[in-house]
């Protein structure tokens, strides 16, 4: 074996028509995905959606039933995992217990016959600020330290593509925030392509340039975090990435400015540019923090949608903001987030209120309303709590 060289920069990852069937179920159906070189790409979805399988296919730990995988333009579908220019940070870290931290980090370099593996290992351990623990065994380190060793062990090889399989899942919240920032910094420093798999929507939004939301083996929507948040295409995305108030109703009029939808007698307008469908029965939505509560019916304004009167069924204080649940007859229960700008709250449980939002904040989904709104499993405790309230209401 000749001595190997590091990848100069990150490489594109291309998945073409990937299918993966396991005995008894299909994990991935017709997946097409292109991740540009040097980007931080997040694959977001609930557990069982096929995101980890996708990662294992790219790493070469599973073989696709059909389709091709290309890294930097080279077809690697038939290559074994050890032949691929790809490294993984495993969810379990999988640090070798019989080796020191230093030997763990140098493992890949030794296998590729790199010059001075120990020197390079020390260098990358300094980057993750663990060089002083180089002679320890992995089991003598804390969870956060092990996570950083796992990261160091992968990035020391300068892979064209780095795969991260929920590597922050086992860490506590504070450490997770810190590691998210560190990961982002490292990615920018070394300029590698990162493919990050996670079910934590906040993590995906903070770190990634591009997010693909995956559900039931398919990609529901892909785009920049802001784009996905502002203009979700499906009810699943609208509810998995943050929370949404969704309404379904027939389109009553369409102008160049907007699409008007009748929701339980309220005329709700959505800008035509923000609606994926403009005819028939459609589902529209708005984010909870875009809503404003009024104790009296607001004066009519063409640029503002108003719903009400409704009744406040729950008030929960969460520090930065307060979450209100407002039940509007015919339209269901709305979630409203209000910044805590004043001491206490003006709105109490049981109050009659009106809810309003700027027309520009609404969005129209591409879903067939027949199966919308769907509220899929979500692991964010806040939305689970909200969901319980909705079900109880």
């Amino acid at each position, binding site marked *: 074996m000749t001595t190997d060289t590091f990848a100069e920069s990150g490489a594109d990852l291309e998945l073409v028509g990937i299918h993966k069937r396991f005995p008894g179920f299909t994990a991935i159906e017709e997946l097409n995905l292109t991740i540009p070189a040097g980007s931080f790409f997040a694959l977001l979805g609930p557990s069982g959606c096929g995101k980890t399988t996708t990662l294992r296919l790219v*790493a*070469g*730990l599973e073989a696709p039933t059909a389709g091709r995988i290309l890294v930097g333009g080279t077809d690697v579908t038939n290559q*074994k*995992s*050890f*032949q691929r220019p*790809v*490294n*993984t940070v*495993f969810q*379990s870290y*999988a*640090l*070798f*217990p*019989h080796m020191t931290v230093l030997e763990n980090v140098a*493992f*890949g370099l030794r*296998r*590729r016959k790199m010059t001075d593996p120990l020197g390079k290992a020390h260098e990358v351990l300094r980057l993750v600020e663990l060089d002083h623990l180089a002679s320890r065994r992995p089991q003598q380190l804390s969870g956060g330290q092990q996570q950083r060793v796992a990261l160091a*062990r992968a990035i020391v*090889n300068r892979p064209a593509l780095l795969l991260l399989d929920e590597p922050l899942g086992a860490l506590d919240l504070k450490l997770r925030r810190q590691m998210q920032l560190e990961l982002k910094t490292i990615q920018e420093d070394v300029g590698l392509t990162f493919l990050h798999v996670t079910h934590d929507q906040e993590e995906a939004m903070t770190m990634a340039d591009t997010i693909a939301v995956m559900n039931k083996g398919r990609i529901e929507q892909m785009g920049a975090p802001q784009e996905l948040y502002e203009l979700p295409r499906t009810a699943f995305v609208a509810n998995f990435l943050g929370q949404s108030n969704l309404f379904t109703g027939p389109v009553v009029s369409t102008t160049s400015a907007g699409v008007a939808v009748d929701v339980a007698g309220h005329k709700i307008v959505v800008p035509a540019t923000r609606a994926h469908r403009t005819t028939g029965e459609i589902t529209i939505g708005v984010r909870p923090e875009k809503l404003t509560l009024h104790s009296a019916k607001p004066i009519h304004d063409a640029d503002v949608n108003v719903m009400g009167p409704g009744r406040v069924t729950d008030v929960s204080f969460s520090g930065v903001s307060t979450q209100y649940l407002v039940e509007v007859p015919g339209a269901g229960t709305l979630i409203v987030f209000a910044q805590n700008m004043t001491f206490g709250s003006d709105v109490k449980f049981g109050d009659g209120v009106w809810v309003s939002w700027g027309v520009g904040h609404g969005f129209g989904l591409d879903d067939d309303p027949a199966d919308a709104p769907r509220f899929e499993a979500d692991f964010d405790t806040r939305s689970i709590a909200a969901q319980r309230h909705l079900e109880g209401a």
Partner: protein
Amino acid sequence: MAFAAFSTTAAPTSSDSVKKKSPVALLLLLPGILYLVLFFLAPLVSLLLTSFKVPAEFGDIGEFSYAFRWENYTDVITAYWPHILRSFGYAITATFFALIISYPLAYFIGVKARRWPLLQSLALVMVVAPFFISFLLRTLAWKQIFADESFLVTSLKAVSLLAPDAHVTGTAFSVIFGLTYNFIPFMTLPLYTTLERLDVRYLEAGSDLYASPFHVFRKVTIPLSMPGIVAGTLLTFIPAAGDYINASREFLGGTGTQMMGNVIEANFLVLQNFPAGAALSIILMSAILVMVSIYVKKSGTEDLL
């Protein structure tokens, strides 16, 4: 003591075990201590004393009196050094072959068969099944199979794979074969228990870090299964070095294949030269102890890899 040495490599965090001295603990230990003193320590001291005895003056054959005749040791070494070397040579060879045969078997049962628990338990039963039949009977059966007029040997002679006047029983081959065969379960079971707990995610991580299947096996699988390899080789090597059934003339051995166990047996039961038998036993025990401690020490530091 040897086992304690290698168990520390697997579990280094046992320092915080019971530190309080409780009379109940001592009481519970008492039967065990008594048993060891009566049935291990006392016979060992007696054996050591016997090994220095001299023939009683005007005594009958088999009558000895206490003395300190250390020449007993040099005498038996001069007389039996080929047997001593042969014992360790055969035991090491048999241990090696048992390991070569058992490792893939244990790997298959412990790792590959995880998806089929029924197959796994069935395979384990098959490994243990020979224990249901007496070890002597099984060895005698092999003697039949390897006998000069057996189907196997006559067939081999018919196709000229064996010389017309060749024998299989009574050769080094048949003794080593018998030792290997009889100790395979002792090798397979400890290997299985470590391999069964082997986390395949480490293997995936190795593969992800550019290690070919061969390197993953050498750098990850073998080191992680080291406790099983050490336990299995000790459980095979120690009894094999002292074995006297396989090498005996009534079983698979011949005059040229006698091991230490056979000469110890002969000295005690036939020649009634108890000091010589005792000295040989002490030599066997010390040699095993020294070899095993070196081995365990090396395996702890991964020098054996």
